[in-house]
């Protein structure tokens, strides 16, 4: 198997699968959308083509059958209902699985699941057998035998408008041959090429060879009308791949000719049905004419590459050019006696260019959030069907751009939250009706950019959460005493569901999670320097919003220092800063605490942790930085707060990756290195 072609195929197939995943669910909601249907059909077809070229037969089999089903649907012989959808989605899963295996380096495949194939066939046979490929050829063949007033009879019980099976076709061919044999004086014998088993199935090639023979023979007959010529549209490369559109145009031409010439009653050929045939001959790369995205740049494996708009690259090139100009200017300035004003102009220019360049380069890493959202229609559909609920999923702001890493990192938490909404948020249809709500529940998944953050929200119109119940459960679980629980405001009560241990068992029927708990979701979001906010109203629904920074590469931080060492604290966790005042602290159980607006917050001396031996507590003018770590707040005492700085996160070198407490390092304005603190890790290491 050619690895390079295989990689191309995998990239293309993966994209198609993403697209199909969404389209298949869309189709269920709007089964009459013929564009969508055609697009899906083409999707399966393209995968089949590639798989066939690479010789992955099990994949071809599944694709082919799925294609047949969609062919039926396109002809409105079969309705795309939930039952059909289930089978098709299973076929889709099977295809994804095989593509995944190919991706993992698997090259040998077992036979496809016979049950699945049989089910697909069953759908296709629901009306009649599928042999759309053959049909147009029958018409073509019959059409070319002119002026023979003989009717070919169809076997009984066959719908003349429907598709023809191979058997039927062969029967017809046999009839035809008898007829032509008797009517035509020219002994027109069609001979099979040698080495072909006359009883075996005919391949397309053989069939066409036969047809060609036939055509030659008939041309010689005097009564033959001029053989109808099908002309290709102009500017079409006759050797190139045929697109569906071109093919349909050809078919239309053929139909006209047929209408004029043919006196032999034949089953009507349906141009749309025949479409797959020529496409099938394509090598591995059919044109994706509908996508407008014929950018075949993706030559590499899917995981490590990003597609970048060439205009964006031009923009970067342009900015790099600017940067070079500024450098040149600075170099000239250095060698001459430049005025301060000239220098500061040049520096201002440099500032400008680098900022733009930074933004542009950042944008190349951006991907639309659609990449994550794409999977949700399917998730919601499957879950809703399993639970017997009626749920409509609305996606908003799919085009919002997000850093590639974030896109990947957000997928799991979002799936969990959406599943929760579907599973625990939305009520059963009858319950909804009783409550005076529309029968169909609604889940809205939205993304929007908010300054340098992305706001993702999951909203459902389900039954909501009751803060009173949550407080009570917290007490029952022994997480806090009753007084503490009662002190929580509603929002804090909602946040309880994020606490470890709260979501596991049958806590509140609302939230009992499965798989990853909500605490895991919370941790993952925190890791991304994001935050979660929950709002809910009993009977009206729940709204969960997640804020994450636009990118993981640049981090807004608060720079603090003691001695000569500076440290960066991620700004998202910083809540407030105030002067350290020994008199306002007290020792409780050996732990220094500070009272802040009626709440006691533990204080930690960063210098004690990070440079033991120094006399941190003797320092004057220390600052307290209150940071939030999960649901907990702690105060870090530092010697100096240097202000806010956006830093580029760089990984620490080898052998330091496993040291807890650091998220990385960064290079500060003066060229020295500042360590970026990972607060949860740090507190865990020292507490």
């Amino acid at each position, binding site marked *: 198997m050619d690895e390079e072609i295989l990689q191309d195929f995998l990239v293309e197939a993966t994209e198609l699968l993403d697209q199909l995943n969404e389209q298949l669910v869309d189709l269920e909601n709007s089964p009459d959308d013929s564009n969508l249907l055609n697009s899906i059909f083409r999707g399966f077809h393209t995968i089949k083509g590639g798989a066939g070229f690479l010789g992955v037969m099990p994949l071809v089999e599944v694709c082919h059958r799925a294609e047949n089903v969609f062919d039926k649907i396109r002809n409105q012989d079969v309705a795309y209902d939930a039952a059909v959808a289930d089978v098709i989605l299973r076929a889709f899963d099977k295809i994804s699985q095989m593509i995944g295996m190919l991706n993992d380096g698997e090259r040998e495949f077992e036979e496809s699941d016979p049950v699945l194939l049989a089910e697909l066939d069953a759908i296709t046979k629901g009306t009649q057998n599928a042999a759309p490929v053959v049909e147009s050829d029958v018409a073509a063949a019959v059409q070319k035998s002119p002026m023979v007033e003989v009717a070919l009879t169809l076997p009984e019980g066959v719908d003349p408008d429907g598709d023809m099976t191979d058997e039927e076709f062969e029967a017809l061919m046999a009839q035809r041959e008898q007829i032509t044999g008797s009517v035509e004086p020219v002994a027109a014998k069609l001979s099979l090429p040698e080495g072909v088993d006359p009883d075996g199935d005919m391949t397309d090639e053989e069939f066409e060879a036969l047809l060609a023979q036939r055509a030659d023979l008939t041309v010689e007959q005097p009564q033959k009308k001029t053989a109808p010529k099908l002309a290709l549209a102009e500017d079409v490369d006759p050797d190139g791949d045929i697109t569906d559109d071109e093919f349909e145009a050809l078919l239309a031409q053929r139909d006209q000719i047929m209408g004029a010439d043919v006196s032999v009653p034949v089953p009507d050929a349906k141009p749309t049905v025949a479409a797959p045939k020529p496409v099938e001959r394509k090598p591995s790369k059919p044109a994706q004419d509908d996508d407008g995205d014929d950018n075949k740049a993706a030559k590499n494996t899917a995981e490590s590459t990003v597609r970048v708009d060439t205009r964006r690259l031009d923009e970067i090139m342009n900015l790099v050019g600017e940067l070079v100009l500024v450098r040149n200017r600075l170099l000239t300035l250095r060698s001459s006696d430049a005025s301060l004003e000239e220098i500061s102009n040049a520096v201002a220019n440099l500032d400008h260019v680098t900022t733009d360049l930074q933004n542009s380069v950042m944008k190349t890493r951006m991907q639309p959030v659609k990449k994550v959202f794409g999977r949700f229609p399917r998730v919601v559909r499957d879950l809703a069907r399993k639970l017997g609920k009626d749920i409509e999923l609305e996606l908003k702001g799919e085009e919002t751009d997000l850093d590639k890493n974030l896109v990947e990192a957000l997928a799991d938490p979002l799936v969990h939250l959406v599943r929760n909404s579907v599973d625990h948020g939305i009520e059963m249809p009858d319950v909804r009706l009783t409550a005076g709500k529309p029968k169909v529940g609604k889940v809205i998944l939205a993304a929007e950019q908010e300054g340098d953050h992305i706001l993702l929200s999951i909203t459902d119109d389900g039954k909501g959460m009751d803060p009173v119940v949550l407080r009570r459960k917290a007490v029952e679980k022994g997480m806090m005493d009753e007084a503490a629980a009662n002190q929580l405001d509603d929002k804090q009560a909602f946040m309880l569901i994020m606490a470890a241990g709260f979501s596991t068992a049958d806590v509140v029927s609302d939230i009992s999670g499965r798989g990853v708990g909500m605490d895991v979701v919370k941790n993952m979001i925190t890791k991304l320097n994001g935050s979660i906010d929950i709002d809910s109203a009993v009977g009206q629904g729940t709204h969960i919003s997640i804020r994450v920074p636009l990118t993981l590469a640049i981090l807004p931080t608060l720079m603090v220092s003691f001695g000569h*060492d500076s440290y960066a604290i991620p700004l998202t966790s910083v809540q407030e800063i105030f002067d350290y005042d020994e008199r306002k602290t007290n020792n409780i159980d050996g732990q220094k605490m500070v009272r802040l607006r009626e709440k006691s917050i533990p204080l930690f001396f960063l210098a004690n*942790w*990070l*440079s033991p031996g120094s006399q941190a507590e003797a320092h004057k003018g220390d600052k307290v930085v209150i940071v939030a770590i999960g649901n907990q707040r702690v105060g870090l005492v530092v010697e100096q707060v240097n202000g806010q700085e956006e830093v580029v996160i*760089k*990984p*620490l*070198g*080898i*052998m*330091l990756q496993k*040291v*807890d*407490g*650091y998220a*990385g*390092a960064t*290079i500060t304005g003066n*060229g*020295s*290195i*500042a*360590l970026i603190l990972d607060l949860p890790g740090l507190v865990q*290491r020292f507490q």
Partner: protein
Amino acid sequence: MAMQTSARQRNGLFSDQGELDDEDFISPTVRCVLFRLDSEVYGINVKKIREVLRVGQIRSVPGAPNNIIGVINVRGVIVTVVDTRRFYGLPSKVVDDYSRIVIVELDEDRAVGLMVDQVQEVKDIPESRVELMTNTREAGTAYIHGIAHYQDNVIILVDTDNMFSNKH
């Protein structure tokens, strides 16, 4: 003694020609960067070395293993600097004018800095003079790839792969 050796070895590069014997012309050679820890001479294959830096500002990383001195900024990349002496059971030493950081490439995107007492020269060592240590590895020789006896020197060839394998 240490000063004597180093003085002679600093001239070594220029005195090579006269000292080669016949056998060395036939045998393939390994080109090594030689450096010194205390009085011992160590060598690392030049293919593995990206550059040699003067010791600048080193940022300590509290909580790191104690054979790590800290991290440095090598043109925007953070590189860990290790105390090479500790790998060979020598006590740490204060950085002086001769101290250098040898940046060793472990693979495409990982590099590490080795703090050494002094970098001496680049030398082609005939492979025939190298005695590999792999079969007789004991606790003390874990980071030694082999030993070369060449031109009155005993050169310890550093096994950088083993030094920074995943066990750390």
